């Protein structure tokens, strides 16, 4: 197994390399110069612009920068953010926590609600509950999440004044450790809800169809013929088998979740990586952009790997062969 994991990681390397290279090519092609943002709003003498350019290595040809960057990358150095004046790794490190927190909360909400809805819909197939769950899933799938986020703010933070509108915790907060975590919870509700709606919809749909597929499977009939109670049939056979496609869909959507968080983090002032990415794009902060794209790709690669491992853990057919 460890060999397999190593192999997968090794296989992902060219992909990550491609991410870096494409990013560099995009930068080469793109109009707009980060130096213009660095020298400030007032007329700058040409020598100064040149100096800044040289300072950040922007005067070298792209190919050379690419090689330099890759060399640094191989040593684990993600580079230096000129817009933030700190190392990219440190910067991303500081922003990962909130993003993961938001992502995982949204993921848990999406899985719990989505899978439950899917099961309810599949069990009551063709009935009212199914219909409502299906329509709900479709609506959830169709509402733009950033828009939903704004509506939620107006409704719950402004009109009803029930929940905070933005941020991770009160700016005045002095809480640490567990207290800080607990304090964050009310702040998490709205963004996590907005972020999860789409995935609730997605997961409930996939759960429903997976359940229906398994419910029609021969071995479910066999299980019923054994006199198993409906609950046991559902738990031991149907849900377990249906979990295979569900796990796959969940795993392959982890990457999307990070991307989706860019919008939600902006709407809710959530200090995560998603927003950092958006900021770095507008500031032409290339090292940060590359770093984040790399991070996102790596997340996707890891998520896919974990998905495959989870799949293998669930499905003996994948694990062994005769």
């Amino acid at each position, binding site marked *: 197994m460890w060999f397999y994991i190593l192999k997968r990681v090794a296989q992902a390397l060219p992909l990550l390399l491609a991410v870096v290279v494409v990013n560099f090519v995009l930068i080469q092609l793109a109009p707009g*110069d980060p130096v213009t943002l660095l020298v400030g709003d007032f*007329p700058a003498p*040409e020598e100064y612009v040149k100096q800044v350019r040289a300072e950040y290595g922007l005067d070298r040809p792209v190919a050379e920068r690419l090689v330099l960057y890759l060399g640094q990358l191989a040593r684990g150095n993600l580079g230096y953010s000129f817009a933030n*004046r700190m190392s990219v790794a440190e910067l991303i490190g500081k922003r990962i926590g909130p993003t993961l927190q938001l992502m995982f909360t949204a993921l848990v909400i999406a899985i719990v609600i989505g899978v439950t809805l899917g099961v309810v819909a599949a069990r009551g197939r063709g009935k009212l509950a199914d219909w409502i769950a299906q329509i709900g899933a479709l609506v959830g799938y169709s509402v733009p999440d950033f828009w939903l986020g704004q509506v939620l703010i107006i409704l719950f933070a402004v009109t009803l004044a029930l929940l905070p509108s933005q*941020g991770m915790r009160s*700016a005045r907060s002095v809480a640490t450790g567990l207290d800080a975590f607990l304090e964050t919870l009310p702040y998490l509700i709205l963004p996590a809800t907005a972020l999860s709606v789409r995935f609730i919809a997605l997961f409930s749909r996939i759960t429903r169809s997976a359940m229906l597929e398994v419910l029609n499977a021969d071995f479910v009939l066999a299980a019923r013929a054994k006199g198993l109670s409906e609950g046991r049939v559902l738990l031991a056979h149907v849900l377990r088998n249906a979990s295979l496609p569900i796990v796959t869909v969940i795993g392959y959507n982890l990457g999307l979740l990070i991307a989706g968080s860019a919008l939600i983090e902006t709407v809710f002032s959530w200090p995560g990586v998603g927003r*950092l990415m958006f900021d770095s794009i507008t500031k032409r902060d290339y090292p940060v952009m590359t770093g984040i794209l790399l991070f996102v790709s790596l997340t996707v690669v890891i998520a896919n790997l974990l998905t495959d491992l989870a799949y293998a853990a669930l499905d003996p057919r994948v694990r062994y062969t005769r």
Partner: protein
Amino acid sequence: MSRFNRLVLFLVLASVLMLIAVACAPAPTPAPTAAPPTAAPKPTDAPKPTTAPVATAAPKPTDAPKPTEAPKPTVAPTAAPKPTDAPKAAEPTRGGIAVIAIDSDPETLNLGLTTGYSSGDVASKIFNGLVWLDGNYQPQPQLAESWTVSADGKVYTFKLRSGVTWHDGKPFTSADVKYSYDEILLKLHPRTRTLAPRLDSVAAPDAQTVVFTLKDAYAPFMIQQTVFDAPILPKHVYDGQGDVTKNPANVKPIGTGPFKFVEWNKGATIKLARYDNYFEKGKPYLDGIVFQIIPQGANRSTALETGEVDFVVDFYLPKTDVKRLEANAKLTAKRGQGAPAIDFMMMNTRTKALSTAEARQAVAQAIDRKRVVDQSMNGIARAARGPFGDGFKWLLTPDVDYAKMYPLDVAKAKAALDKAGVTAGTDGMRGKLRLVYDSARPQFVAAAQIIKENLKDLGFDVDLQALERSVLIQKVFLDWEYDLTLQSFVSSGDPSIGYHRLYITTPTKAQFTNQTGYTNPKVDELLAKAATAPDVKARAAAYAEAQVILAKDLPSLVLFDEEGVDFASKKLSGVWAGIDSRDRWDLVWMPK
């Protein structure tokens, strides 16, 4: 162990690790607390001004500021003057943490490297300038105790305050001032480095004295000595530590100001705590300040209303929310604070249709500037009067008034265009114009739509190009690939600092300068004169002459003057001591 079990183990471990990462990462380090310092200064001690400021003896609020009347030797008081709008003279008390909203992570907290607005917001509490500017643009002593100016206006001698310490305990001396200028400000500060060609030398004859020698007199020199333009940085932290721009102190600053840096949660908050050894004894009053980063304008307004935030500077507030916030009983609004700023439209004279003054005048005549103010600024602005707006009352001239010169009149504008040779085709159209603006500026997004509509009536098909800032800089200032562009300039306290670049002949393709292709030696000469003239009358005369020319030639059409509105929670007292509301937070306090 079977493969399966190992797999399960691995998955469990992986998820546990993830959870730990989640739980740990956002945990903040302790914030500045209300723990009282061991020797708490008596709050009643300091704020009493001992002497009235001499140099600014006659500042009538309506008067034009006279920054160039400094040649007279000036002795400033040791203590700050009373805040002009201190509420009901209540005695300031200590304690409390104020929350200020900003829009994004500052790029750096080293104000010597940037004019970035959020950088200034945070770092102005940590650092000091030699002086600060009061509500009438009058320089008041900060790190400098007093100063004298030679008769020819070329030599400025500053006497520094004694007993000032850096946040790390090291003493502050003239060496810090000289170092800040020589190695950082004149080289790296985007605005102050424009001073370099005017400056002969910076000398520190003794530990408490700094002498600046200019090549020529320069009117706004004192205005540029504030913390925003000339923050004094610690030599011992930067000197010999390699590249200044990459010094770790840029994100963990050590200053002389009322608050010291505590922690920076990227994307979330920056926390400052009271510096107990601040040179103005008893100040600051607040225990700390937290800057909360809220990227969306609407969210900043909301946070003000919900009380999550105590103070937001005009710059960060959507104009659409201003009227609602002004009606909020929990908030104090302050209009017209800050340096004048104008929003304008550059017209590229290299574009054939815009190459003549007549054509540009026609364009001016077709644009509904009142609607621009009403709809793009929600009415929180003043339709422009002339080439320098109306923010500096002393330079206004009755000869120039856009409202009279270019009233909205499409028919007349069309006729003028026909006369200027910009004729319409059979379809009534006169061609295509590219209007370039910053997609992140809501007022331009709206104004562009109105201008597109207006110019369509004139027969121009306007192609809107909402660009992201760095692309915009490339297109407008470096490549000249535009016909019209919407921009805004801040005066920074004097027209010669902020506005001249809009009209003078700029030799290089420098950003945020005149790139319309308009060159007029006469204007260049007049504006140079206005910058160096010894008294305000002479300056006003030069500006008047220049304005008549510019209002006619119209390389850029000023659309409106911004009218800043800051908002503070009623929980705060003592805000708005300085002209820049980000300054002098050592005077702010929270009534119990």
